[in-house]
């Protein structure tokens, strides 16, 4: 029954359960294995069911599923497409990332390198807690507090940056229920998670590399540029990807803020557009069975997109492990 000094995390099971196996061991190992297998089976079944429904819906779509703007699966013949949704999802997520990543990095550096030492810990703790605030509350705050407060900024952007087309607002007096506001709200929502992961990565940068830079006569910023950021870069990228995954899939905060319409517009201040998850929640109530299948199809696309983003993040983390192992 003794295993000979296995590596720390993985004691060898099979050698231990060699020829003589106790019933207790067999049952317990079976339960543990069974849970793992159950997890796989559930995931596989779900993926299969989802695909079946989605294919069913898409095969009856009389529009082009990828390029159609409208979402009218209840019409006869049904016409629906994800063009507006994909555009809105991606644009709002990009806005969120452009705003959130630098700020989150700033806060992470603030906690690790700039804040008075006594403050750093509590601030990190509070930001940790903020990551747990439910998204519907961000949505409520966004719709009832942020939207009215965005008015001035919108007008100002339209006045001075309207010529860039992006910041042009068709009707300057319309409410700020736009992709831009959604992007800002998503940025605020993903800030805590990006900050936390980046902070953990930055904390792992070995002291000795930072001292090397200090001893060369580097200022604090130069220490960060020379030894902190290069070391933490891949970790920060994957933190951002995790945040991006959240922003892409966020439902309620978008559903409460955005004034949706099947319009694909380059003007991000206009209250038009939609996102995958917002569309699902908004259209679900009045959808018939076929309409729900259509929504499942759009959900499958969202799932694939988040899968790609998260997969990319994992690959980056994996590379980083190999890389830092080589230098240990």
């Amino acid at each position: 029954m003794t295993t000979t000094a296995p590596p720390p995390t993985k004691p060898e099971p099979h050698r231990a359960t060699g020829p003589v196996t106790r019933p207790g061991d067999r049952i317990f190992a079976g339960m543990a294995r069974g849970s793992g297998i159950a997890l796989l089976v559930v995931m596989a079944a779900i993926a299969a069911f989802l695909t079946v429904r989605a294919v069913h819906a898409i095969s009856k779509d009389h529009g082009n599923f990828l390029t159609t703007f409208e979402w009218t699966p209840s019409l006869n013949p049904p016409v629906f497409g994800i063009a507006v949704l994909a555009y809105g999802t991606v644009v709002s997520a990009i806005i969120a990332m452009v705003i959130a990543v630098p700020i989150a990095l700033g806060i992470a550096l603030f906690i690790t390198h700039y804040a008075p030492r006594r403050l750093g810990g509590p601030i990190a703790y509070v930001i940790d807690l903020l990551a747990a605030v439910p998204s519907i509350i961000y949505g409520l705050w966004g719709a009832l507090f942020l939207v009215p407060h965005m008015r001035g900024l919108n007008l100002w952007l339209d006045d001075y940056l309207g010529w860039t087309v992006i910041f042009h607002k068709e009707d300057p007096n319309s409410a700020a229920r736009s992709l831009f506001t959604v992007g800002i709200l998503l940025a605020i929502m993903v800030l805590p998670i990006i900050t936390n992961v980046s902070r953990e990565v930055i904390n792992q940068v070995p002291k000795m590399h930072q001292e090397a830079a200090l001893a060369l006569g580097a200022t604090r910023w130069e220490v960060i540029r020379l030894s902190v950021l290069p070391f933490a870069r891949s970790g920060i990228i994957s933190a951002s990807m995790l945040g991006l995954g959240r922003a892409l899939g966020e439902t309620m905060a978008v559903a409460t803020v955005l004034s949706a319409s099947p319009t694909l517009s380059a003007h991000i201040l206009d209250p038009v557009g939609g996102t995958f998850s917002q569309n699902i929640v908004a259209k679900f109530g009045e959808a018939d069975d076929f309409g729900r299948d259509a929504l499942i199809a759009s959900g499958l696309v969202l799932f694939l997109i988040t899968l790609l983003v998260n997969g990319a993040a994992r690959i980056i983390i994996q590379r980083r492990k190999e890389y830092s192992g080589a230098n240990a």
Partner: protein
Amino acid sequence: MSDTVMDATPAAGRPAHTKLASRHLPRWSPLAIAAGAIVVAVAIGAGAGLSSHIQWGLIALLLFVGGSYAITAQVEGRRQAKDRVATSLVWSSFILAVIPLYSLVETTIKKGAGVIDGTFLTHSMNNVLTLQPGGGVYHAIIGTLEQVGIAAVIATPIGLLTAVYLVEYGKGRLAKWVTFFVDVMTGVPSIVAGLFILSIWFVLLDKAPANGFAGSLALAILMLPVVVRSTEEMLKLVPNELREASLALGVPKWRTIVKVVVPTSIGGITTGVMLAVARIAGESAPIALLVFGSNVINTDPFHDPQSSLPYYIYEQYKNGNEPSYARAWGAALVLIAFVMILNLVARAIARWKAPKHQ
């Protein structure tokens, strides 16, 4: 050998620093520059009649960063100026992030506190017109507790056993696949988890679900990977010497796991489960698809629609009138309090159990 090379180009790279002391800005200068920037920004904002305070803040920010650079470059030099700009950017990003996050918490507390009273906590929305004040969240609290409770009952044992499998038994292809799918599940948006369950109902029962249990299943899918991940981390922290000591005493492997490994890390595992519960307690998207929401008290999670706190907030918001908004804020405060208490207790357990490992 190197001496000749040295002497060939004496002191080529030596910077001209004979003096250590250099001109310095006083310690209070960042504060002074910040104050100056704010004053000027307010003057510009008020003068130009800019209505949004966000703009005032942005102008102040630009003035602060630019001013820091210019003044420091004049007095201390370019490198110090860059350092100063980095410092002011880092500080600004912190303050920039604090403002909305603080406002979120402050608004919720301010608007929610006035709504919450005995009636609000003990009454449902039955027979309450949305345009009227009154009514409460009792049915939503019941719904949340039941749905989250069932989800936890499903996800916790499977999650624990899966983690035990991965750490104590997992080798070979199956373990790799399980790890991969746990990763996949971690990234599943909550709305997609709702669609997952919906499609199961469609395929197996050919109808849409409308009960708390379906919601629980979706929440369990969201909770499972979190439990697996955190439990895995905790089990990995258990030193191998402990396992070997137990095995060497002739204790079977499964009893070693149940009696030695899991109890050693039970604090951390509990924390992980509680944080996962806190996370799913705030999920509303799957509830919208699977549970539908309800205005009345329904204590049976297996039949008929139920409400839940996060979905209640969404419903009240959609009503679009002041009394409903007030109820939404009240429910938001209840929900935040619930989630925060779970978080604080979970972290307290982690902190209380942690030193024993070291």
